[in-house]
Every structure is written in C-alpha cells, then in structure tokens.
C-alpha cells in the first residue's frame, strides 16, 4: 500500500465523516418540519444534543464496545477498555492503508448517534426532555455498539454470513425497532386517535422537511460511500449510483402509490419514499446493479404509504414516519440482499432474516426496558396541559418563532 493511496483513502473517509455529520442536520430539519410549531425548539434541542452525546459516549465507551478487536471475534459481546488510545505502529498499517485510527473513530462515532436520532422523531411532541436524553445516552452507549459489534465488530452475525453493508439493519432497523418500542411505551399524542377516527396533525413546515430529506440524501453519499472503507474508485462510484437510483425510484413509486391510495400528490410521502429507498439500498449498496437498486428502492417506495397507513391503523403514533422508513424499509433492504444482487439466494435470505430479526428483537427489547424503567422512575410523558401548550414553552421557556408585529413591539419596553 502506498502513501499516496493511503492519503486519498483516508481523505475520502474523512469527507464521509463530514457527510454523515450533515445527516444530523438533515434529521433535525426533517423532524422539526414535521412537528407542530409549538414543539420545534424541543426537537431541535434533542437533535442537537444527540450528536454531542453520541460523540462523547462513543469516545468513552461505545467505540471499544463495538470494535473490541480480534480477541472477541465471533462473540456476542466484547470490550477493550475506556477511552481512546492510538495503537502503536505505523498509521498506514492500522487499517491496511485505508484510514487512520482517528478517522476510524470519528467516522464510526458520527454513525453511532444516528440510531438515537431515529427514535427522537418517533417520540416527538410528547416525551419529556431529560428522560429522552437519558434514553439516548444509554442506547447509544450500549445498545447500538453491542449489535454493531455482532456484525461490523466481527461478532457472531458476521461469522454466520450475515451481510449488512452500511447499516440497513445495524443502524436503521435497530433505530426503527427502538423507536417502535419507545412509541408503544409512550403512547400516541393526545387527540390523534379519536372516537371519530384518525386526526392528522400536520407538520408545521414543509420547506424544513424537504431540506431535511435532501440533506439526508446528501449525507448518504458518505454513509454508504464511506462504508466502502476506502476510496476504491469502482466500489465507491457504484455505491453512489445504486444509492441515488434507489432514492429516485423510491420517490417515483411512493408518488404513484400514494396517489393511487389517497388521490393526492402527498409531498410527505414522496419525501418518505426517498428515505425508504435510501434505507433499503443501504444493506447491499455495493452488491447491486443499477437495475437491482431501482427495484429495491422502488419496492421501498411502494411499501412506505402502506406502512404509514398501517401504523396509524394500529395506533402507533409516529409523527415523522420513522418506523416505516427505518424499521420497515431497513428490514426490507436487509432481506433484499438475499434476493437481488451477487449474494441473492435462499440460504442468504434466511441468514438475512435471522440477522435483522435478532438485531430488531434485541433493540426492541432493550429500548422497551429502558423506556419502561424511565416511565416508572422519572416519568417519560409531559402532562396533558404541557402537551397542549407545547413543549417549547413548557420545557424550554422559549418559542421557536417570535414573529407577530405585536411580539416584535414587545421588544421596545419592559
């Protein structure tokens, strides 16, 4: 391995880190756009804190739980000590000339927090701030790294032949199942499911939501492209193609499916279709041909509207569609590796199912327990009055927009 290629590989991994970082802004704006005006500060606060908490816990413990080293190969759990320490030896050798130790850590660290962010959208508009942050700390410090270790850290799933290129299972389905558990413990927003039927609670800003989805797609070039773990020209560029085509196909099929179902060009469904396509291709982005990618993303786009309606029917209230996008399409994308592409085949399909199911069950159960314990101790839900007034005023003593002429005037006297 020569120094020049090492430098280039590492550069790409660092840029991927920046791209994955920008996904946090994507989540923040998407989720802010899909909640009501009175809960915007709260969702921004949570999303801002999650990145920060995620990076710090990953420094302290997560990284060494997820990548404890070869000693724990094939296992269920490993840990190589607190904090970071640069290994001895020539940096070029740390990862066969692909990236440095620091790059490894920061790239993985940016990934870690996305998992908790997925939950934040699903529990929006009624969860208390502090319990949620505690949940995030625990989830991102322990749960995500443990299941992550199973596969990417070289644990038992890896050994079983499971394949999850960039995290349809390990990030998205894990986060999505946790979100489902959290929503079940927490209950729906007041007024959403009434005796007269479902009462939609429209998000307060479609521009913010759209910005969020574009930023997520933008960041996904690093999420998937960086998962090649080097700047290998053919591999990374193929991943760019499959990722983008799956997103594009998801949008188009979501458009037609939702038009067929609701006779309406629903922007929020198209946006979710794009995300569904992205989540679905993630497990096999390096394995698929363009046509496979279009099929996988396109099917995700069809699943999305049905899934959103289904969860509403069973009264799982998820304001941003995180369960449909991350859990359902993460599941689908993981299976798709056993159907399409180079690895497709019944055997692989079985292993894929087993992998996503075990990770899903683990994440679900872990999230359920954490949430339940918090419910019994600190409480997890704001009061009815606070929910009606909004979390911004009640938890943050602030409103997201101070913008009427009368409010502006208020600045001119005590």
């Amino acid at each position, binding site marked *: 391995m020569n120094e020049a290629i090492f430098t280039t590989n590492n550069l790409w991994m660092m840029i991927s880190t920046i791209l994955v970082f920008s996904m946090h802004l994507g989540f923040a704006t998407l989720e802010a756009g899909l909640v009501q005006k009175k809960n915007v500060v709260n969702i921004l606060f949570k999303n801002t804190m999650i990145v920060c908490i995620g990076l710090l816990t990953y420094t302290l413990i997560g990284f060494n739980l997820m990548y404890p080293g070869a000693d724990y190969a094939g296992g269920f759990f490993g840990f190589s000590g607190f904090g970071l320490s640069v290994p001895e030896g020539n940096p070029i050798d740390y990862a066969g000339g692909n990236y440095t130790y620091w790059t490894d850590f920061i790239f993985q660290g940016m990934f870690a927090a996305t998992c908790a962010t997925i939950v934040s959208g699903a529990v929006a508009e009624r969860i208390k701030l502090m319990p949620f942050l505690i949940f995030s700390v625990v989830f991102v410090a322990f749960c995500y790294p443990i299941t992550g270790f199973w596969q990417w850290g070289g644990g038992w799933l890896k050994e079983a032949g499971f394949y999850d290129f960039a995290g349809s299972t390990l990030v998205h389905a894990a986060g999505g199942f946790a979100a489902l558990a959290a929503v079940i413990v927490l209950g729906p927003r007041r007024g959403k499911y009434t005796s007269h039927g*479902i*009462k*939609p609670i*429209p998000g307060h800003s479609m521009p913010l939501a759209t910005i969020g989805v574009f930023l997520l797609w933008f960041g996904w070039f690093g999420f998937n492209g960086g998962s090649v773990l080097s700047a290998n020209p053919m591999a990374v560029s193929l991943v760019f193609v499959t990722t983008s085509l799956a997103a594009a196909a998801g949008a188009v099929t979501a458009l037609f499916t*939702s038009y067929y*179902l*609701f*006779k*309406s060009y*629903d922007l*929020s*469904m198209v946006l979710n279709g794009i995300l569904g396509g992205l989540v679905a291709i993630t497990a096999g982005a390096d394995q698929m041909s363009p046509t496979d990618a279009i099929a996988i993303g396109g099917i995700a786009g069809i699943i999305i*509207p049905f899934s*959103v*309606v289904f969860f*509403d029917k069973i009264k799982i209230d998820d304001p941003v*569609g995180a369960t449909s996008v991350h859990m359902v399409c993460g599941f689908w994308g993981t299976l798709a590796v056993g159907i399409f592409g180079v690895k497709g085949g019944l055997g692989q399909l079985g292993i894929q199912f087993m992998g996503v199911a075990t990770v899903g069950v683990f994440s679900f159960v872990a999230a359920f327990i954490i949430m339940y314990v918090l419910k019994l101790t600190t409480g997890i839900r704001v009061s009815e009055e606070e929910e009606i007034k909004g979390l911004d005023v009640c938890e943050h003593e602030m409103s997201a927009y101070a913008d009427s002429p009368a409010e502006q005037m208020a600045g001119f006297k005590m």
Partner: protein
Amino acid sequence: MKKIEAIIRLSRFDKIRDALALIGINFFTLQDVKGFGLQKGEKMVYRGSVYDADYIARLQIDILTTDDMVDAVVDAIISSGKTGEVGDGKIIVYDVQEVVRIRTGEKGSEAV
C-alpha cells in the same frame, strides 16, 4: 355613526375594495379570520389521512361610517362580494356610540 363588519372571501377582496372606493370609502381596517359556516374547508390529505380543513380563511373588513352611508356600503359589498356560491359571507351593522380620531381628538363624523 355605524360600524360595518364584512366577512368576505379572500378572492373578492380587491373587487370589494374597488367598489368601496367608488362610493368614497377608502378607509377601513382589515384582519385575517377563520370562518366556520355552511361552506366547508378544503379536503386535505396528510400522510394518508384524508380530512376536511374545518374552516376557511377569510378576511374581515371593518368600516366606520356615517348613518346615511350604510346602505350604500352594504350594497357595494354585496354586489362586489357575491359569487352566488355558499360561503360568500356576512355583513354586520352596529351602532357605534362614539368615534374619536386619535391624532386630533375630533369626534363623530369628523373622525372617520
């Protein structure tokens, strides 16, 4: 002195303004209101749930005027604001006890 409140369609605002100007009414106060009435709001769809917006955005025009102008104003608003479809709105006439112009302290018909 009378106050006339007219709750009108957004789309008729300009026609009404012109009609009022023709009879010499150039002063009024406008506000955004939401109307609940016979005409239902638009069919809306959000994330797969179909619902009716239960109100319609409307404008309320408040006009202060002298007693003798009332009929002219009402007629002007009706003729310019009517589409004939449910939802054209209402005109309400009140008696006003006093009107004062803040700038000068003038009262009554001097003030409008």
